[in-house]
């Protein structure tokens, strides 16, 4: 167990490193540019009108302070990190004076819920069916499913989201296509609210699952095809061990380990899909917020979301990495 504790410590160290590097990148990208967001904002505001130069100067100073752009680079760096440490990214420019953290906090659960549910379903479904397809190679329905999965897999997210939208929004309108819940329904722990949330989530989740399952299916099927040639599987078959048991305890159990690692590695990519899906379905998550923030030129919100998503993904990867040794007795603090 001491080995595991050591592993946990090292893994947490890695997490801190990732967050540090990532947020630094965010900071330096914004400060390494020749563009001054303040000037850009002021230019946008004064584009179609005349302004008193003094007022412009005051706005400029206020904005600089708001953006944390006062002082030299080092001062800015320190100020930046002291704020990040308390998850304070300042007020949002487009939704002034709401602090960025509030906006993020409000949008985060929607994205998180959407992503985790969709990812989990796609991962479980894909791995289960892929494992069966890899083991029972002659089964026709599994083969058919394989063809469908391979066919769906290269379809880009936005296409799928759009297709789902058109199909279920116009052709067969049984489910709502925008928003996270009914507009005039008050939020709260009521059954009606949960039902509404569920209904609104079905289509976006469906769109993500359709695209995601294929990749897991194909990977798992290939993995299982390799594992059935391993010595311990052939030996178990020689021993007449119950086939169901071989499938679950010998094949799937060993195949899941790389798939769990794969899940951790793919977390960063899942974000793409979520953004488009949120935009298409008008889902009030982080992706949607990010896009609108960019359109509105809301600097602090953009940096806030970028940093938060780096931290969130790194954290999810950390959790998965910590679970892995519990599943695989061979993985030690190596």
């Amino acid at each position, binding site marked *: 167990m001491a080995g595991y504790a050591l592993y946990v410590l090292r893994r947490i160290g890695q997490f801190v490193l990732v967050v540090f590097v990532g947020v630094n990148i965010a900071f330096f990208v914004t400060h390494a540019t020749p563009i001054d967001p303040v000037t850009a904002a002021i230019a946008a505001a004064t584009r179609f009108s005349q302004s008193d130069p003094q007022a412009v100067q005051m706005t400029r100073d206020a904005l600089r302070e708001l953006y944390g752009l006062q002082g030299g680079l080092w001062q800015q760096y320190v100020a930046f990190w002291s704020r990040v440490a308390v998850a304070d990214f300042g007020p949002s420019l487009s939704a002034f004076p709401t602090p960025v953290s509030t906006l993020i906090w409000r949008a985060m659960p929607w994205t998180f819920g959407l992503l985790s549910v969709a990812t989990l379903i796609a991962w479980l479904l894909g791995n289960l069916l892929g494992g069966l397809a890899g083991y029972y190679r002659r089964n026709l329905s599994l083969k058919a499913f394989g063809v469908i999965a391979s066919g769906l897999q290269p379809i880009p997210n936005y296409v799928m989201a759009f297709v789902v939208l058109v199909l279920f929004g116009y052709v067969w309108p049984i489910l709502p296509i925008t928003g996270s819940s009914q507009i005039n329904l008050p939020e709260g722990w009521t059954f009606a609210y949960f039902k509404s949330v569920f209904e609104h989530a079905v289509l976006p989740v469906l769109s993500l699952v359709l695209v995601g399952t294929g990749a897991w299916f194909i990977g798992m099927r290939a993995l299982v095809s390799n594992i059935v*040639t391993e010595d311990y599987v052939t030996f178990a078959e020689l021993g007449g061990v119950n086939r169901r048991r071989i499938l679950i305890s010998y094949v799937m159990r060993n195949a899941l380990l790389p798939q769990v690692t794969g899940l951790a590695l793919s977390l960063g990519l899942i974000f793409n899909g979520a953004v*488009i899906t949120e935009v298409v379905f008008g889902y009030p998550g982080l992706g949607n917020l990010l896009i609108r923030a960019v359109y509105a030129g809301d600097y602090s919100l953009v940096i806030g979301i970028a940093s938060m998503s780096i931290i969130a993904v790194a954290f999810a990867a950390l959790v998965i990495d910590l679970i892995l040794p519990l599943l695989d007795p061979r993985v030690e603090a190596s």
Partner: protein
Amino acid sequence: MFSIVKDLLRYNREFALGAILILLVVAMSAASYVSPYSAGMQYVVPFDTPPSWQYPFGTNSRGQDVFWQLTFAIRNSLLFGLTVAVLSRVVALVVGLTSGYLGGMVDRILMSINDSFIVFPPFPILVLVYFIFKDHMSWALLAVAMASLGWPYDARLIRSVALSLRTREFTTQSLFSGMSTRQILVEEHLPYVLPIVFATTMNNVNWSIGLEVTLSVIGFTNIDTPTIGTTIYWANQHTALVAGVWWWIAFPVGLVIMTFIGLYLLSISMNEYIDPRSRLSRMGGSA
């Protein structure tokens, strides 16, 4: 190497299919050089006419011939994808090979950095880059940004190949028989590394084109350059689907799906070919 490609073409259906698809796509992009219109021209043909003999892919609301637009679009998207793939291959190779061959502390440091980069969600970072550079956003900049995010996964793969090659018997044998390090690397090891690099390049091109399209559809790239993504962006701007101009979206999407499937087939058939175990299962057994 050439005989391998010939064999694959003849006996491996997936490879053949992938090769055909990619050839079609490349042919399409080559056609851009003989296009009667230049990429930026607008309002040169009647608007919104459906596909016909005269306009095989129809025309769009900006008065452009969709077919010729797409030749530019696919050319640019392909070139972009290739650039990113090449750039990130370079980084992946350098990091992976160094890590695998030198081992020790160098390996651990490089892999820590690698594992940090793997976790970064590329999309928010690219959005941030766009946000900062806005109108000064160029394709070169985007390519560099993407390349710096797309190398870690493949660097790990290359590293594990390098590790196993380093410890294999034929390496020590070559060393003892007096081959120089450079000779060993080029003559003994490269044949193992190259197929993996090739397969990961296909994947990487897919990934980068996918990201480019996603970003362009939202409008976060230079939308005046015709690419698959920007075409869809403009189609959305002109509410093409609602207006019934479906060909403006359908054909670019079809093209990009063709590219994806083609590259994907090439990469998996090459992977399967390399893996000796899968070879056995293809030798007359349906196992």
